[in-house]
């Protein structure tokens, strides 16, 4: 027994030796940066990794802070913050914006106080249907206090993972906010959405934790919404429901998500359109667990 204990302790310490070697989040190097974002607004028209190397504070109300206009761009904030709180709740700016381009990555950022924290759209313009871009990745970032949505990203083969989205909402005239908007087949994995609310001047709120899928059901297929924690959607009025996850598509899996309210809440934990398999989700304090018969219960879902 004694030997076993000693071996355990030694193994622990040796395991600790490996922590730096894993290097998952070691202090960042600028070696691979093709350029630096030292002021905003800025337009990125050259591919590669563009880096923040300082805290950036701005007060943009109509201009996007970082506008990406070419494919294959990574925005790496290196832990620095892009802060637009000074613009107030009426801003219509995005922290990082890209339209109609592919392979856009945003990582290691804290983006605060924009209308959208990120708006990465595969369509060229708001009025254009159809997806022209793909392969986006938004990861390891925080999105506090953005006014309508923390993250918007759409496009084939895209992933939104390991982000923390907090206190989203408050845009004037909007009766609700959305933590994460993931149009089309985007995998949404292991994110935290905590706190979504509407404009105080509106009588009724309809807040949403994660909106995944697409209006075009034929293209929104085969994506995964897994391991997310959606909490504290604020309720005001009774006209509209609160919605934890809204998922539209075919061959979609919604698995192992935690969708919880502290108090009983009028709304739907899961709203499914198309054909959506749901399994192993925990749902607490929603008046209705599922909305629509398109939620195909594959077992292990618990609502209470």
């Amino acid at each position, binding site marked *: 027994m004694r030997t076993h204990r000693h071996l355990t302790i030694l193994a622990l310490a040796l395991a600790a030796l490996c922590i730096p070697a894993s290097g998952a989040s070691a202090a960042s190097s600028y070696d691979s940066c093709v350029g630096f974002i030292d002021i905003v607004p800025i337009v990125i028209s050259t591919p590669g990794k563009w880096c923040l190397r300082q805290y950036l504070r701005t007060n943009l109300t109509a201009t996007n802070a970082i506008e990406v206009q070419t494919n294959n761009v990574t925005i790496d904030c290196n832990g620095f913050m892009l802060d637009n709180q000074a613009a107030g709740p009426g801003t219509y700016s995005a922290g990082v914006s890209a339209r109609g381009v592919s392979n856009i990555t945003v990582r290691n950022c804290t983006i605060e106080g924009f209308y959208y924290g990120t708006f990465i759209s595969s369509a060229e313009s708001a009025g254009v249907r159809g997806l022209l871009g793909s392969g986006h990745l938004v990861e390891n970032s925080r999105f506090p206090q953005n006014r309508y949505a923390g993250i918007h990203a759409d496009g084939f083969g895209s992933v939104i993972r390991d982000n*923390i989205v*907090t206190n989203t909402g408050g845009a004037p005239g909007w009766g609700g906010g959305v933590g994460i908007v993931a149009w089309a087949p985007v995998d949404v994995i292991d994110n935290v959405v*905590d706190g979504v609310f509407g404009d105080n001047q509106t009588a009724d709120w309809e807040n949403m934790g994660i909106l995944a899928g697409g209006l075009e059901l034929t293209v929104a297929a085969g994506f995964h919404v897994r391991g997310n924690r959606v909490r504290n959607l604020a309720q005001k009025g009774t006209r509209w429901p609160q919605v934890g996850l809204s998922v539209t598509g075919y061959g979609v899996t919604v698995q192992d998500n935690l*969708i919880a309210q502290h108090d009983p809440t009028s709304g739907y934990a899961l709203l499914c359109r198309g054909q959506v398999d749901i399994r192993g989700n925990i749902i607490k304090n929603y008046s209705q667990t599922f909305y629509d018969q398109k939620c195909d219960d594959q077992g292990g879902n*618990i609502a*209470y």
Partner: protein
Amino acid sequence: MRTLRSLLMFGFAITLRAAAANEAPAAESYDSCVGDINTVPTVITTGGTWCLRHNVLTNATNTRAVDIRTNNVTIDCNGFRLADAQAGPSTMSIGITANGPYSNIAVRNCTIIGFNFGIFIASNPGGGHVIENNLLSFNRSAGIRVDGAASIVRHNTVANTGGQPGSSNGIGIVVNGSVDVIDNVVDGIAGDGSVAFTAYGITAGDNLSTGSLIRGNRVRDLTPSGSGSSAIGILVYSNGAWVRDNLIGQQTSTNGIGISCGAETRVRDNIVKNYTQGLAGQCDNDTGNVTY
């Protein structure tokens, strides 16, 4: 003798680690550091990433080695040690702390040894903290404490916690608020032997918080001592928490509870070994839990 030998072995291993860490900087980059932490105590009042470039040692018995007093701060130790090892078990010092309405604090890649609390982040209001990839060892009351909504404690190793003289309990990881505790190792919690001692692996939540996720943690080798004492692997207060896929094991039969639940806690797919009670309190035993 047994404890001494264990300490010697651990010390030897830590020495190895320090040697390795001192060679590490060639592989690290400090480009994104806004400043360095070369001595302690230090107060951080500017946001950004603050870095260790070498081991930082103290023997203070009542200090806040790294005291964060603003939002959006990352402490990146780059694998180096922050140690209070010479202060002894009575120390009341804290390794890294933020105590105020601060948000978005991160602590990563640190080895924190010998404090009363290794990491103590107490924010209300405030939140969005991330504590990841750290080793906490020989801290006297708790390895990690985090209060604050929408926070995550993940991929940490918390070893050999306890030993504060006269203390009746020690805790590996403490979280309050809606904090997710994911994929951590808590191994070894023991008292100083002077009073009855209850060992807690992980305690999570309070009555105000909602929906914490406690997943994939391994809690081992809790050592209660004295009359009426017990071990509690995971203790959950949080309203509507989800406890799943954790391994809570003791080498020998131990008086205590593997998972103790507060109101409406869902419990699934956990393995509990050698506790007198596997699940207790208001656990909703969903499926896949094994106690033996």
